[in-house]
C-alpha cells in the first residue's frame, strides 16, 4: 500500500502535466492509445518473463515514434493514426495472451489497476521516470505552450515544432506506461484528461490551469487510493470516480461564477 501510495503521488503529478498538452491540442485520445500500446507491452513482458513495466515503457515509447512519423505524412488523419495504434496494439496483446495461456489473472490487474502489486523496482522506476518527465515539462514549458497554441507561428519563429510534438508524445508514453500499474489500461486516459478539463472550467491562465489540474489529480489519486484500500475497490476505478466528482463540482462552481 505504501509503495502504491508513493507511486500514485508521482503519477498524480505527472499525468495531468502531460495531459494538459494533449487536451489543448485536441489529442485526448492519445492517452488511451498509448495505454493500449502499454498493455501489449505488459503482455509481451509477461510472455518473455521480464518486468512488464520495462516492456510497457519500451513498446509505448517505440510506438510514439511511429505515431508521430505517421502524423507527419499527408494522406492520413491524426485521429486515424490513433485508431490504428489503439486497436492494433490490442490485437497484439490479445494474440500474445492466447499464445501464453497462464497469466490471465495477473493481466486483469493491469486492465483496471491494482495497489497490491506495486513492487520496490516498480516504485523506483516510477519515481525516477516521473521526476524526469516533470523536469522535461518544466524545462520545455514555454516552447510547449507556444507550439501548442500556434504551431505554424512557432515553426516560422524557428522553434523545432516536430521535435516538440514528438517530445509530448514520448513523455505521454512514459507517463502512461508508469500509470497503468495503479490506474489500469482502461482508465489512465481519464486521469490524464479529467483533471485538466475540470481545471479549464475556471477560465484561468494556462499556468494556473496546469497547477489546478495537478491539484485535482493529486486529490483524486490520494482519495481514490484510500477508498480502494479501506473499501477493497479496484484502485483505478476509485481514482477516476473521484476525478469525475471533482469535474462535476467544477462545472457547478464555474456556472455559479
Amino acid at each position, binding site marked *: 500500500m505504501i509503495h502504491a501510495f508513493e507511486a500514485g503521488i508521482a503519477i498524480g503529478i505527472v499525468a495531468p502535466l502531460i495531459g494538459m498538452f494533449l487536451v*489543448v491540442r485536441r489529442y485526448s485520445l492519445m492517452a488511451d492509445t498509448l495505454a493500449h500500446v502499454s498493455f501489449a507491452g505488459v503482455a509481451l513482458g509477461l510472455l518473455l518473463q521480464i518486468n512488464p513495466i520495462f516492456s510497457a515503457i519500451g513498446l509505448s515509447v517505440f510506438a510514439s515514434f511511429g505515431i508521430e512519423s505517421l502524423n507527419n505524412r499527408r494522406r492520413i488523419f491524426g485521429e486515424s493514426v490513433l485508431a490504428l495504434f489503439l486497436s492494433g496494439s490490442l490485437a497484439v496483446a490479445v494474440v500474445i495472451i492466447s499464445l501464453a495461456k497462464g497469466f490471465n489473472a495477473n493481466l486483469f490487474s493491469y486492465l483496471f489497476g491494482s495497489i497490491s502489486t506495486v513492487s520496490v523496482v516498480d516504485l523506483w522506476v516510477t519515481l525516477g521516470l516521473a521526476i524526469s518527465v516533470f523536469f522535461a515539462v518544466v*524545462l*520545455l514549458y*514555454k*516552447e510547449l*505552450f*507556444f507550439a501548442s*497554441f*500556434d504551431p*505554424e*507561428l*512557432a*515553426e*516560422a*519563429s*524557428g*522553434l*523545432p515544432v516536430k521535435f516538440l510534438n514528438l517530445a509530448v508524445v514520448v513523455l505521454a508514453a512514459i507517463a502512461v506506461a508508469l500509470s497503468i500499474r495503479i490506474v489500469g489500461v482502461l482508465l489512465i486516459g481519464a486521469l490524464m484528461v479529467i483533471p485538466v478539463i475540470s*481545471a*479549464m472550467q475556471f*477560465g*484561468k*491562465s*494556462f*499556468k494556473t*490551469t496546469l497547477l489546478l489540474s495537478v491539484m485535482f489529480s493529486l486529490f483524486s489519486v490520494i482519495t481514490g487510493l484510500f477508498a480502494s484500500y479501506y473499501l477493497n475497490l479496484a484502485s483505478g476505478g476509485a481514482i477516476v470516480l473521484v476525478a469525475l466528482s471533482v469535474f462535476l463540482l467544477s462545472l457547478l462552481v464555474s456556472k455559479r461564477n
Partner: protein
Amino acid sequence: MESRQDDIIIKLDNVSFSYDEGSPVLEDLSFSIHRGEYLGIIGPNGGGKTTLVKIILGLLRPTSGTIQLFGQDRHDFRDKYRIGYVPQRVTQTDKNFPATVYEVVRSGRIPRLGLLKRFSKNDNEAVESAMERAGIAKYRDTLVGNLSGGERQRVFIARALASGPEVVILDEPTVGVDIGAQKKFYEFLASLNREQNLTIIFISHDVDMISQETKTVLCLNRELVCHGLPHELANEKLLRELYGEHVRRAPHDKGPVLTEKGEHHHA
C-alpha cells in the same frame, strides 16, 4: 522606391513554387521590399498570397529561385525575430484554449529569447510595452478566447511586436473583425509604419483597403501582375487581369468598390 541597396530587407529572384505534382502556385516572382515600406499584396483567392508569405517565413521551400532576407540567403538567415507574423487566424483561434493575453503576447518573445532560456526583466518589459502599444494592456489577464475579433487581432499584433521585429507580415488579419475595429486597426498600423519606421506587408483580397491604406502595392495571381503605387489599382484593365473579366469598378460614396458578378463587396 529608389532606396539604397542595403535598405532592401526582402528580395526574391525568379521564385517559383508548386506542390508535389501540381501546377505552379507561384511563377517566376522577382521583387524587393525596402525598409519602411507599407506594401499591400493583393490578388484573388488561390492566387498564391498565403503561399508567398509561407515561403518568406521559411515554412515552405521554393521549387526554384532565391530569397534573401536582410541581405542573407534564406538558408543562412537565423534571426527569425526580425520578421513578425500575424496569421490569418482571428476566426480560427480555439476559443477554449486556456491562455491569457499576457501568456500569448509573451510567447511572441520566444524567437528573440532563444530556446530553453528564461524570460529576463528586459523581455518582460518588451512584452508589457507591446501590449501597451497595441492597446490591450487592460486585458492582460483575460483569456484570449473571451475577446472580440478586433481585440484578438490586437493581441496577435502585440505578439508579433513583442520580439521587436523590423518587418511585420499580416495575412488577411481583418477577416471576422467588425468595420469600426478594422478602421482603428488600420490607423494603428499606419502609425507603426510612420512613427517607428516599421516595414509592413499587408495581404488582403480587399482592393479598397489596399488602395487607401498602403503606400505600395503588389498584385499577385500566380505571377506578378503589377508592382507599383496603389492608385494604379484604379486601372480596370489591370483588375481584369488580376480577377478575371467579370470584374469592374463601381462608384461608391466611400470611393471605388470592387464588384464581382454584379455583387457589392463591402469591407
